[in-house]
């Protein structure tokens, strides 16, 4: 599959990159790791006139820093492998490492960047296919048409969010810094996602996700990310569950907890029922109720070929129970936190 023709530029300043991306005449898109983008280009899902390479941007975008007060700061261009191999990340954020190492394959982890992973497009089997196969069907919402092949009659796009890293970072209550032409803001990662299949994040033309900020881990906290897929490598998550919690000092009761699912909605799905865990021991019925709440909220669709939506929904209970068990085990064993 040949790539379509485009021009290429690698600016060395953020201001220049933002300007190039904002100018509508350029019809430009940014490239970080390129692992997802090049596939979209090969499939002619995107046809830019200009690729703006972000790799020459300042060193801070490639940097990892940690301070006990501020927590972890990762540049948007840090590769998944680089983050997963970092000593502090391994010691203090095992749930994040689990998520990083579950992305694609070792090659994709070496090439892909954190910023690129968080900005990855939603997937749908009717959209992510070759031009020849797409010709067989009327264009869907995501292709600029007016129908949805996943849910017949739907007036909106139901492409699914299938990222691995975002659920773990959301569970850790991370924030992201976005820099645009003359603007800079730090927002909770939760607000980065729009739950719109056509446009899954809030980035406007000219804006770049430059930094990820993860708060320092609380004492007696731990988490786990589990991923359902056919093969143990390469595949996107058909379901992913990231559970993180902390226990009260000197007690075995929950102080705070977050549960985020992926692969089952148009954005990473927060399970609000973790609020009810506060002040309670994580055992028996409490875990069952949480698993049941997650099961009710998850709505996997026929947006992927593998495994039926029913099976994936059924597995929500299993994965949530297991993620809670592993997270609890990590804290009670003393773990690394």
């Amino acid at each position: 599959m040949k790539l379509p023709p485009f021009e290429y530029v690698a600016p060395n300043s953020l201001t220049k990159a933002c300007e190039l991306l904002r100018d509508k005449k350029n019809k430009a898109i940014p490239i970080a790791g390129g692992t997802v983008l090049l596939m979209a280009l090969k499939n002619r899902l995107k046809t830019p006139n200009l690729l703006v390479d972000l790799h020459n941007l300042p060193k801070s975008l490639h940097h990892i820093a940690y301070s006990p007060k501020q927590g972890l700061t990762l540049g948007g261009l840090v590769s998944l492998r680089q983050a997963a191999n970092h000593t502090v990340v391994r010691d203090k954020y095992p749930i994040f490492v689990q998520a990083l190492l579950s992305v694609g394959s070792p090659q994709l982890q070496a090439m892909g960047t954190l910023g690129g992973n968080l900005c990855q497009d939603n997937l749908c089997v009717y959209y992510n296919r070759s031009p020849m196969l797409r010709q067989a069907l009327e264009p869907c919402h995501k292709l600029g048409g007016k129908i949805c092949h996943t849910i017949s009659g739907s007036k909106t796009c139901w492409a699914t969010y299938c990222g691995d890293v975002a659920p773990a970072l959301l569970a850790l209550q991370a924030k992201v810094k976005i820099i645009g032409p003359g603007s800079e803001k730090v927002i909770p990662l939760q607000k980065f996602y729009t739950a719109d299949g056509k446009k899954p994040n809030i980035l406007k033309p000219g804006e770049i996700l430059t930094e990820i900020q993860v708060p320092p881990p609380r004492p007696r906290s731990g988490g786990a990310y589990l991923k359902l897929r056919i093969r143990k490598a390469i595949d996107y998550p058909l379901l992913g569950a990231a559970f993180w919690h902390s226990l009260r000092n000197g007690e075995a009761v929950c102080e705070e907890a977050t549960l985020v699912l992926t692969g089952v909605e148009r954005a990473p799905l927060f399970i609000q029922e973790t609020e009810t865990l506060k002040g309670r021991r994580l055992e028996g019925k409490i875990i069952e109720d949480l698993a049941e709440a997650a099961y009710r909220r998850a709505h996997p669709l026929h947006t992927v070929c593998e495994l039926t939506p029913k099976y994936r929904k059924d597995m929500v209970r299993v994965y949530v129970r297991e993620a809670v068990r592993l997270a609890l085990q990590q804290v009670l064993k003393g773990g690394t936190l």
Partner: protein
Amino acid sequence: MKKVVTLRVNGEQVELEVRPNQTLLDVLRDDLELTGTKRGCDSAVCGACTVIMDGEPVLSCMTLAVRCHGKNILTIEGLAEDGKLHPLQKSAIEHGAVQCGFCTPGWLLSAKALLENNPSPTPEEVQTSVSGNLCRCTGYQKIVDSILAVAEGKVHKPSKPSEEPACWKRDV
């Protein structure tokens, strides 16, 4: 518009004019005629196009050649040195880890990248390192065994490519 890039491929400096929409795989196979790097799925799945770039295994089908300026690239053609097989290649032959051979360049380079960073990996680490390389002849166990043998130092004597490996010898 074409751009000039300078790469170091298998130890040799190469200067090339590339179009922005050429992948590293296109350049390796079509311009440099290094056809040992295979074009498999061409969509970041099979790992047949794996090469080592600055010490990391990468998929050349998903890497723009124009972004490789100044990079050090190792393809399968550069694995054997001075006409002597690399221990990983020797081990692959001895363990019968090669069937049709299409995935072999990819996983050999994935394994080389692993052993350079981690000279004594566990079997699980070896499995993970080649998990991005699909083998349709289903020879995974022999692939893992052959890499572990090198890590454990069971294969260390380089041999000339003309030497007949033990597993090819037959009683006539």
